[in-house]
């Protein structure tokens, strides 16, 4: 199996963390609604409990897959989590709207839209999440009888568009920042790989310099002692010359290396033969 590129792994882990946090907030936050809506007649307990339970199950799923997180899993879990929250809010908002006393409408949807901007795995999922919270408000409002609509405070439910605007701006900024961070990481990874390659090439060159020097000097000695071997040694010289040219070609990698203290007592054999 081919391992994922570092930036892909980082992306998956980032998405996984966002989706996990969204599920945790659902599992912990929705039961709080039960405390807040105590005393409201006909307020069912099951929608927030169901949403919280679904969030808890999704948390378990995410934790079970923590060693192999994928962006697709994070997106799926995030959307499922958002869906169960919206179902719960749809039901409870209808009861809140008819309850006696003053209701500040769709607070959870406003917070949800902002949370989606911060926690969504990617741009598209974030837009869907924000759209879900905003769309539910508009649809729910449309289902209210006119008398109930008139009971809502001034500017409601249209204030949700301001939240949507802020949420979309936050989402866009975050996605842009993450993309920038990923690009920096990719460039850094490539730079490290190039450095490693350059070091290996130069180690290879340094490793061959001494044997080449030995061969060349040995050829001179043989030529001095046995002049009749000159034709043979000429071939050796030409072969050495070709290796020199390779040697010079590898010199271009010199400028690509940032030398460190580890290079002060180098052992080229480690890089070339590994021991």
């Amino acid at each position: 199996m081919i391992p994922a590129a570092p930036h892909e792994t980082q992306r998956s882990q980032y998405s996984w963390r966002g989706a996990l946090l969204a599920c945790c907030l659902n599992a912990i936050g929705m039961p709080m609604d039960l405390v807040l809506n105590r005393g409201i007649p006909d307020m069912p307990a099951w929608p927030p409990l169901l949403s919280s339970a679904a969030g808890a199950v999704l948390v378990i799923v995410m934790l079970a897959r923590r060693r192999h997180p994928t962006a697709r899993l994070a997106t799926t879990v995030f959307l499922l989590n958002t869906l169960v929250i919206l179902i719960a809010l749809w039901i409870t908002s209808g009861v809140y709207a008819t309850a006696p006393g003053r209701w500040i409408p769709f607070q959870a949807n406003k917070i949800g839209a902002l949370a989606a901007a911060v926690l969504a795995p990617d741009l598209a999922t974030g837009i869907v999440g924000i759209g879900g919270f905003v769309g539910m408000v508009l649809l729910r409002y449309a289902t209210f009888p006119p008398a109930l609509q008139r009971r809502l405070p001034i500017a409601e439910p249209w204030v949700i568009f301001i939240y949507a605007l802020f949420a979309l701006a936050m989402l866009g900024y975050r996605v842009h920042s993450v993309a920038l961070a990923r690009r920096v990481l990719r460039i850094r990874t490539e730079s490290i790989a190039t450095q490693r390659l350059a070091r290996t090439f130069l180690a290879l060159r340094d490793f061959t310099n001494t044997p080449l020097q030995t061969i060349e000097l040995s050829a001179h000695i043989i030529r001095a002692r046995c002049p009749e071997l000159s034709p043979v040694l000429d071939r050796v010289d030409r072969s050495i010359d070709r290796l020199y040219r390779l040697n010079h070609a590898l010199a271009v990698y010199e400028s690509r290396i940032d030398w460190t203290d580890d290079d002060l007592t180098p052992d080229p054999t480690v890089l070339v033969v590994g021991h």
Partner: protein
Amino acid sequence: MGHPSDVLFLDDDDDLRATFADLVRTIFARECHGLASHRDLIALGERALRCGVAILDINLGPEAPNGLESYIWLRKHGFEGRIVFLTGHAASHPLVVEARRLGDAEVVSKPVSLDRLTTMLDGQPYEEHASQ
């Protein structure tokens, strides 16, 4: 006994050391003291200091004193001959850059040609276009 015509050759590669000494004796008819380490240089002592030319490898192996330390030892103990660093490392390598800063020592890259070797041993300044 060391002599101003003698050559000091410090390199941790056994084959190159033996070959270089052989070449100096065969082609230049001069004595060559092949040494493997800084410790060998110190052990050779006075005889090393009387040589006319010292050719030092910069990298004498991992965790071992390098050729620059041998240079310092030679100069500190009154060596008056020519000192040439012979290195297989890149010109931008920190040790090579440091060797170039020493001023009165030359830095020559391996592999070195016979022409250049001749100028090194004859004490003539080397011209870049001569050979490489």
